[in-house]
């Protein structure tokens, strides 16, 4: 799961997948803005075949938050 999350993040945010770690967050990544955030949420939804609620999307503000929210849904 974590590998797939990193791939989607790398694709949407235009990052090197190897650079994504616990410190990767909306605050620290320049390309992670409100628009790419929606793209990221939609990309994760399509890939993991889930549907996020708005509070979940608002909570997914870092790599670790994404893992946590997704783990609860899967």
């Amino acid at each position, binding site marked *: 799961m974590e590998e797939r999350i990193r791939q989607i993040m790398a*694709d949407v945010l235009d990052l090197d997948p190897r650079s994504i770690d616990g410190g990767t967050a909306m605050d620290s990544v320049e390309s992670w803005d409100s*628009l790419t955030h*929606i*793209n990221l949420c*939609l*990309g994760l939804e399509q890939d993991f075949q889930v549907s996020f609620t*708005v509070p979940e999307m608002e909570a997914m503000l870092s790599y670790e938050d994404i893992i946590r929210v997704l783990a609860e849904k899967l």
Partner: protein
Amino acid sequence: MVADGRIPDEPRRAFQASLDAGDVTATMRSGQNLLGGNPQAGTARFIRRAMEKTFVGHPALAPLRVALLSSFSIEFVHDLLIAHGFVEGLRIELYQAGFGQFRQDILNSASGLYAFDPHVVILAVEGKDLVPDLYRHDAAEGRVDLESAVTEAGQELAALAKAFRERSAATLLVHNFTPPTWRRLGILDGQLGPSQAERVAALNAALAQLCRESRGIHMVDYAGLVQRVGTSAWYDDRMALYARAPIAQSALPQLAREYVKFLRALAGKTKKCLVLDLDNTLWGGVLGEEGPRGIRLGPDYPGSAYLEFQRVVRGLRQRGVILAIASKNNPADVDEVFATNDHIVLRPEDFSIVRVGWNAKSQSLREIAAHLNIALDHMVFVDDNPAECDEVAHALPAVTVVALPTQPEHFVQTLLEPGYFDGLSVSTEDLRRAELYQQRDQAEELRAQSESIEDFYRRLEMEVVFAPVRETSLARAAQLTQKTNQFNVTTVRYTEAELLERQADPASLVTTIQVRDRFGDNGIVGFMMARLAGSEMEIDTLLLSCRVIGRTVETAMLAHVCEHAARRGAQRVRGRIVLTSKNAPAQDLYDRHSFQRKPGDPGGATDWELDLSAGGIQYPEWMKIVSEVSAS
């Protein structure tokens, strides 16, 4: 390599291989496979990045600047639009107006929109953003005057269209509007006075009327598109409220494809010819095994599904699509089906050329293309057999291949959904095209019997009519500039609005060319524009439909320019050939007519000049010339 583990492996490998080989046509074809069905956002992004890295500026891709103006967040369609455009041979560059800034961008002539100098502008406004009262549940009729709200919205659209046209000659595509998903009065909506749905329909009718009365403004039938998909699947209420992005991710590919239908037509890439297989395509079963009476084609399933498909194909022919057959069969069996089946819809004369035999299908397609004088990338090949589809796709990557699904009831959707044959206008020539091609065949037969080429020209009894662009010929003239690739010296595409601008310029000669011969009226088959600058008449557009290539019509066109130039006191006629991969038939035009090549050619083009003091060019003696151009 772009990371996206979810793109299907096999098509992705094919895409990567053609990308690595730098083969743009094969990459477009494999990209098409990747984008089939409901592609993931990552797939479109992957294709967009690959294209922008490898093929930017590639001559096979037509550059197109597209501006998106919307009342909501439409950014999520960008990757899909660019990817879908690429697989159709378009290099789309996008301008995205600021959120909800469509009015400001259109009304302010110093806006980013006009600085971008777009070819096409898409105005995507949701009904609830344009006429909020009509969609609000708490706007009770009586307290809110919905009728004037709708009238005013129609007037605002008209004013925006007018302001836009004053500032730009670009093509404008305007969404129409969907009715509210949930009606204010529920099941009573239609019972008490004009319903919400009727009011939206009235607004759509006003918009349709506006488009019909304007030049270069077209309606995107957004309501029809949403209806095909279904309102509840189209809209994502969550994203509408959270991110002002009302269109569901799963619906965006369909929106991108709808736009591409327009862009394809504007770029002159509308398909012209449909080549059909017979067995399990136009009827059920294998004719060679089951015999003319054993195949399924009649009122009962599955024969009914094949009949339905034949009706759709016949409708395409009536729209001007040229039909052809490429089938592996015994010709006598095929003739017997057409002669004896009581239900068959298509007639032998519906097909401009029939290739029934045992050659490879790609060979039949080549022969059909040569016979009709049509480029391969204007052909669509339809077959149920995956092996045949694969053979054609590999041998002729420029041909669009449609592989039919197993069940014949899905054929209609498979053929019509991509909109390959959709154009932005239907001219009389379109409606008569198949017939015109038959006339051409008769003319070719005459040529084969004739003793000399001059005799052939004489016996054609050609009459060539030069006329200014008129109301009735404007659509055809614009369409000719958009569609003609072979005999076209500069291959510049023009919209109707741009042609009207040129026509209004007193220094310009803007002329359509109509050709009649003893076999009938070919309609308007040529177009040219020239402009007087000082003592020189410069030809910037000269094109001729392939139907009349090789009949010296081009000589008459040059003679007409010379005559006009001399009358207006010019001393020289100049012309440029912009070399493309397709315009070989036009490349020696000026050379053949004694123009002198000028030194210092610009890249990819040659410049030519003719001194009129030697008498200019004469009309061929075998033609009757009718000039309806005003003697200014």
